[in-house]
């Protein structure tokens, strides 16, 4: 299949990668640019391990065609590492024992950073809703939710 040179704005830098027209954003990030922090858990938009920010909004990199991302701002976990919100989320997860195998973790960090940026106190339910598209097979979610609630200053439990 033919490849064209695609130009993408990733983590604030213009990057070029030879790309098939059918390649997803995740294909280009991982295989083209070797930005492997975004994980491929299902490639079908279900697990959330590939979550990145596109124009500042969470998106599943496995569901987006790379060509459609031209001219848009893509931020991966690698790019978020510089931001204060991410550092706080990451520290909360690490210190609360919310990480096990870690394969879901970058996607969850991205989702929680989005929640943190939305501002305002997040309740347990808000946190659960924000990561409802991120499957974690290890943790049972409890410590992830506790970490996020303790950080984002929500009510302790909204008795769902």
């Amino acid at each position, binding site marked *: *299949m033919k490849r064209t040179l695609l130009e993408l704005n990733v983590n604030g830098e213009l990057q070029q990668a030879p790309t*098939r027209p059918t*390649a997803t954003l995740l294909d280009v990030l*991982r*295989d083209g640019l*070797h930005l*492997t*922090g*975004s*994980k*491929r*858990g*299902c*490639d*079908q938009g*279900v*697990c959330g*391990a590939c979550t990145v920010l596109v124009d500042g909004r969470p998106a599943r990199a496995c569901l987006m065609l790379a060509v459609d991302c031209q001219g848009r701002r893509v931020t*991966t*976990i*690698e790019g978020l*590492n510089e931001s204060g919100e991410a550092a706080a*989320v*990451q520290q909360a*997860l*690490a*210190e*609360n*024992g*919310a*990480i*096990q*195998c*870690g*394969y*879901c*973790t*970058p996607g969850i*960090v991205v989702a929680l950073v989005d929640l943190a940026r939305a501002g305002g106190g997040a309740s*347990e339910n808000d*946190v*659960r*809703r924000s990561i*409802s*598209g*991120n*499957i*974690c*097979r*290890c*943790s*049972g*979610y*409890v*410590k*992830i*939710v506790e970490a996020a609630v303790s950080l984002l200053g929500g009510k302790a*439990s909204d*008795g*769902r």
Partner: protein
Amino acid sequence: MDGEAKLRGVGDSLPRLDAGDKVGGRARYTDDLFRPGMLHAALMGSPYPFARIISCDTSEALALPGVKAVLTGADIPANRWGGFINDETALAIDIVRYVGEPIAAIAATDLATAREALDLIEFEFEELDPVLTIDAAMADGAPLIHENFAEYEKRPGQGDLAPNQVSRQSIIEGDVEAAWADCNVVVENTYEVQAQSHVYIEPCSALAEVDESGKVTVWSANQSIYKVQASLSKALGLPMSKVRAITPPVGGAFGGKSGVTVQPITVMLAQKTGRPVKLTLSRTDDMMMMRSRHAARVRVRTGAMADGTLVAHELDVIYDGGAYAEDSAAVLGFGLLMARGPYNIPHVKLTGSAVYTNKLRAGGFRGFGNPQVTFGTEQQIDEIAVRLKMDPIDLRLKNALQTGDLWVGGQTVTSCGFRECLEQVRDAADWPTRRQAPAANGKRRGISVAGVSHICGLLGTSAIVRVLEDGTITLNTGAVDIGQGSDTVLAQICASSLRLDIGRVNLVAPDSDASPYNWGTGGTRVTYMVGRAVESAAGAALEQIRQHASEIFECAPADVELRDGGHVGIVGVPEKELSFAEISGRAHYVTGGPIIGTHALVYDGQEFDPKRALMDHFPFARIGTYVFGAQVVEVEVDEVTGQVEVLNVWSAHDVGRAINPAAVEGQIQGGVVQGLGYALCEELTWEDGQPTNPTMMDYKVPGALDTPTNIHPIIVESEEETGPFGAKGVGEPGLVGVAPAVANAVAHATGVRLTRLPLTPESVLRAMTAE
């Protein structure tokens, strides 16, 4: 002294050693690795559950630009490997035995090309009559799934097996047949449990390369570098010394990566092309090609006296092993060992078998045969409580094992916190109140319990503790942390053994060229078994340190004491002190040689007692130290939809001693949620041998909104004398009792007993309306 702050070690809820890498997306899992000149590979799966391969044409695929190698069963060595029966090859040879079984592999310059080329391979099959159920496998005249079964290499002691049977075993104590007469109540039921998919979020993956001498290096997601090495050695016909297995971080495994997965075929492609090859399965390929939990049918009869004393328990289980034997014999044996549960029952007859069917092979999955039988046994006990109008916790307490009692098979239980677990869940759940709690309109409400037992132990393991010149420590065990946190726990054990801060312990990633032998991550064993090796290896290093110090101080080694923060001194003389750095420097440059403490062991607990129990074809002489738990589940059942909502779970576990309490809680919470998936929604299904839901879209794993908020882990510490700092294991037990506890709670809520998993709304509603 440099006055270090409080040393962080055993008993502290420390963050994982790799937490920073993982939250930052910097942890490099197998699929994140790239080698110069690396090719990408993809597999083709069988379209039929049972068929003969008549012919195969790969010429078009090979002609596609970018394709570097195509392999089919005709191209690979017919070396078979397996757990107890060597029945597997890297690709199907001549016969396919399940839909999805790998039949061809392609390596190409990129993944899209490899996948495109798969479509160009032409196979011709002759379909055979598939054997799709346990009953069909055991039927008279059933087609033989492995026609050359007799010729396969087997571990000795498998006994005579019926056609399509993989293993047959039994454990008998007392005289069940005579005992029924003494029972005032006898409960009999047949339970059915489904196949559950592991759905570790990292699909199976391997990267292999071969050097000039033919030595193979393979990075892969696995649970044991030594299992990978041994299986590859068999599959490739290479000596073990020519196979190097390395484990990058692993994205979850739960038993599903305990055998080899895609390593053999990846290596064969690397050998064929002379280039590094990476093979990572797609989610659907992983779900169709790899493994599941064994589906099973469990027939149980249990009897008690009017006062609740359990008298007799007869259980027969048949595990559906799928198309290859894998660990089925061990799953069966372990299931039987757990089938009596943590109760004193004098008369037991536990029998079972595992059979081949033309479906995905079943393998180890958190609980390893235990959840299947426990789903039966714990509902039996609940039903006896119902019939005798006894409180189900009281009934269990009345029959509960205690320290010093015998496990079935005759092993003495050396530490048992079962009673305490029952008492703690009862108190935490405010049991008497909640047992009476009224339901909301249109709902039924119930709460009940299940007892849990498991083992930690198994086989060989070793550790090396090296004291570096500056007094920091390098710990090497070969144990694979599959996400549960064992690296951190082992470093904590090492640090506390040497009274150092954990920050001074460096852990070596598993590498079969560098790490000492470790049987693997499984059987809830790493904290307990590898922890023991680490504690003793640190002790051995300390002996050398003591010797040096005594020479320098000119005192007896016994007068040398270990002090906090990497120092030793003379007992009673505070000012006489040396640092590990000073001593290690002397060892490296002056006398004695570098300080290296080692320890190796094989699980050494008591053997089963043949005078007490008749154990027919049982695959282990001894297996492990027993762990206990109790799980209470509170549910609300919707009268209109049959939906079971879990309101609360209390899960108490006797872990001996919690080395890292937060990590212990994480294991319990994660196990409970996997158990809720098993109980309520997860089921791999087939129609005419075709998988009907091999995607994460169709196979529902619990998400954050499907999971109850209130999962309460409770840690009970019974101080196991043989364990490191008193610790036992906790990896598996959190899952084991969840499904029967849910079913018992549903029975309490609705009065109907559901005997088939998962408890879907339809099945609950059907049972309620039939009532």
